[in-house]
């Protein structure tokens, strides 16, 4: 992994200079603060007009927390794809990869540095937004168990890591960033669809999100199989990205 730290620092600086870091943090913060606020004020917003009285259920802290983590999974996935789809492909397309990869750094290091920098950006954004969400839920609702919320957030973090590795694999295969983004979306949707199949579903990577919801509700069992498969797939996709890049003409 020679040159890893140099590439990792460069990736983080690039994310900061090109405002990607700020955009990801802003989106996640909006979700972290916006979800509890919106659900808290939703009944009064809907029923402001005279005469209209829609039956809005009372949201609990658990509902709000699950809604937040659900939004993180869906919107976070889209943001991951948008930010990571050009990570390798755009560098190949523009030719910047040519100068870096003609230096004494391996292609594996090149991919892993990108993974690490993206993971840092998304995981830190997730932690910050989860903190805000936890505080708002505590203030506006009846609060949720800290350990359960932290564990559910960590599981959402694993899901985002899986999305990053899938997108990096696609970005290493395709030279067009849009093709890479489209392919990553298809792979993630297929994995999501697998979770709906009985028997297989409990081992599907997206099972970690259901496990997170179960933790917040205080019921359900641990989807360890799903967790191991998610982690294993994340590693496999990164190894795949490295191997795909090894076979490419730069």
């Amino acid at each position, binding site marked *: 992994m020679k040159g890893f730290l*140099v590439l990792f620092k460069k990736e983080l600086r690039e994310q900061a200079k*090109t405002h990607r870091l700020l955009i990801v943090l802003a989106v996640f913060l909006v979700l972290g603060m916006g979800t509890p606020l919106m659900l808290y004020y939703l009944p009064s917003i809907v029923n402001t007009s005279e005469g209209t009285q829609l039956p809005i259920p009372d949201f609990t802290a658990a509902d709000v927390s699950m809604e937040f983590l659900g939004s993180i999974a869906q919107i976070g996935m889209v943001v991951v794809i948008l930010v990571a789809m050009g990570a390798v492909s755009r560098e190949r397309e523009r*030719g910047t990869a040519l100068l870096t*990869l*003609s230096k004494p750094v391996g*292609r594996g290091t090149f991919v892993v540095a990108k993974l690490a920098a993206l993971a840092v950006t998304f995981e830190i954004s997730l932690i910050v937004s989860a903190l805000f969400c936890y505080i708002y839920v505590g203030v506006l609702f009846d609060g949720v168990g800290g350990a359960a919320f932290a564990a559910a957030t960590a599981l959402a973090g694993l899901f985002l890591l899986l999305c990053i590795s899938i997108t990096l694999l696609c970005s290493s295969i395709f030279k067009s960033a849009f093709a890479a983004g489209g392919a990553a979306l298809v792979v993630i949707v297929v994995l999501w669809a697998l979770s709906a199949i009985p028997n297989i579903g409990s081992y599907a990577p997206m099972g970690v999100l259901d496990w997170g919801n179960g933790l917040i509700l205080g019921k359900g069992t641990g989807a360890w199989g799903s967790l191991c498969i998610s982690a294993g797939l994340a590693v496999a996709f990164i190894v795949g990205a490295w191997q795909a890049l*090894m076979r490419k*003409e730069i």
Partner: protein
Amino acid sequence: MEAIACRGLTKQYGSVIAVDNLDLFVEQGSVFGFLGPNGAGKTTTVRLLVGLSQPTVGQASIMGERVRINSVHLRNRIGYLPEEPSFYNWMTGRDFLLYVGELFRLPSHENRKRCDEMLEFAGLKDAAKRKIGGYSKGMRQRLGLAQAMMNRPGVLFLDEPCSALDPIGRREVLDAIIKLKSHTTIFMSTHILSDVERTCDTVGIIDKGRLVIQESTNRLRERFASPVFELEVEGDASPLAARLRSLPWVTAVEEAGRDAGAMLRIRTDDVAVAKRELPGIVSDSGLVLIRYELISPSLEDVFIQMIGAREKV
């Protein structure tokens, strides 16, 4: 020891053979011009030599070390400037050179020192803190040259270093290359003949993926290009041209009109006879001789002769 050695190097893309059984040897300390028309296989060869592309067959070695794709160790010893280098536009020129120095694991103080040296060498000291996105093509090319030299490479690969530049940019980059001559072995691919004449001591000509010839620049001129006599005369030169064409030692006569006269380019296979006979023949023609010159063959003559001969085959 040879700086570069290729044996049977071949690269095939589907049914297209980009580099065909290339045997090439470049001496250490030389400036090697790798010459060929567009699409001849120059860039593919350079990419094979720097380990960015995998050969279909054959192998190459640089300073005795075999080139392998992703050969990290070898890259510590070489420098590479691609045809149109792309940089991270958000970086400044200085940032980029420091980044490259870090990739070569230069100690911090040495990296800064080398960076300053290279900025000075590339004439970018004043623009060091400007973002690369605002650099001109010439500045980017010189920055490319500077980054390729950051690690003091044993062999420097330059892929068409001047092809995208205007005459001023070209001159700046060629001057920079000439400055590097005494420091490293240079392998320069180009289709611009005058650049090779100006900088290279050895030339390899590639066409359709095959090496046509490899020779020192001077020997190549001596071997393959016959000298040309240029005559500028006043009056109608057609009868003189006709007479010259009939002579056994004249191989070709080209005629070009001038304001009040004509210019003749005469090729011969016997320079000694031509030197002796030509002035008398011109005198007998009754034309007024304005200029009489024996032109040394240019590399362009050799190139056209060699590539042209292959086209006819």
